[in-house]
């Protein structure tokens, strides 16, 4: 298990419970393309050897082939590495105090959001489709008090177990941090009421 000090803004007495990523099957296409790219230079060598063996006699042409063939190979390998990075850096971390969603979008975009466990109200696990059912991976939707948006774990392994674990941890956290939980619910209600008042004033909500 990773060390809690690695987490952004670690809370006191916080202990990591689980770190989840998408199921490896979701990067199957990436693994296949990696294998193809590894085989590609050898296949190209054989292709030219069979169809145009005289090209290997031209040293200048071969030098250009080697230079730009090598560059092409390097960029393809980097593209695969960056796609793997995109997969690997997307993660959901569950601790005994909160849930964190870290999402990497491309090389320079990263979103980190977190949710305190005592705010969790409803957790839903969803497994749909043949492959997901067979390999037991799917979505986990976590909903909090007063918020319409879901906190979503995408294509994680054993979603039902994760949902159950989050509910258990949320229950424990609510008991341990009862005051904070009540405060959060009250503030959410006040915010919610204020929002309703504003909307009512503007004639948006009855």
């Amino acid at each position, binding site marked *: 298990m990773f060390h809690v000090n690695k987490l952004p803004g670690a809370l006191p007495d916080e202990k990591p419970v689980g770190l989840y990523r998408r199921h490896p099957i979701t990067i199957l296409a990436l693994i296949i393309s990696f294998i193809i790219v590894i085989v590609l230079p050898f296949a190209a060598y054989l292709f030219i050897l069979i169809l145009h063996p005289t090209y290997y006699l031209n040293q200048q*042409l071969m030098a250009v082939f080697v*230079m730009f063939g090598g560059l092409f190979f390097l960029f393809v390998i980097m593209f695969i*590495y960056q796609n793997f990075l995109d997969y690997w850096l997307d993660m959901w971390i569950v601790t005994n105090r909160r849930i964190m969603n*870290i999402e990497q979008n491309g*090389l320079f975009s990263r979103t980190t959001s977190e949710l305190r466990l005592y705010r969790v109200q409803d957790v839903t696990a969803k497994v749909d489709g043949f492959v997901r059912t067979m390999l037991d991976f799917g979505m986990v939707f976590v909903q909090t008090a007063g918020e319409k948006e879901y906190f979503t774990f995408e294509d994680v392994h054993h979603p039902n177990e994760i949902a159950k674990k989050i509910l258990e941890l949320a229950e424990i956290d609510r008991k341990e941090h009862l005051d904070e939980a009540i405060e959060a619910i009250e503030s959410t209600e006040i915010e919610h009421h204020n929002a309703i008042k504003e909307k009512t004033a503007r004639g948006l909500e009855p």
Partner: protein
Amino acid sequence: MIPLIYFLILWVIVLGLFFILAGFSVLQMLRFGLAHPVTEISTAVFALIVAVVIVGTIGYLAGVDLKYGLDISALLNVGQTPLF
């Protein structure tokens, strides 16, 4: 006739661009990948493949006389079947 040295200069420039992008990728991976063997192994595999390709290319180019040029028109027309 295009001198090979021009191709070499272009190769070095594109390789420099590659190093910048690869550097950012590795930096992001090691910064945010948490302490996990897969983070280190995937980065090591990537670095190893890059090193093998670059060393192999330089090794090959060391044996090529860069004073000569590449005659593309002759390659496409004279006495040979075109490549494509």
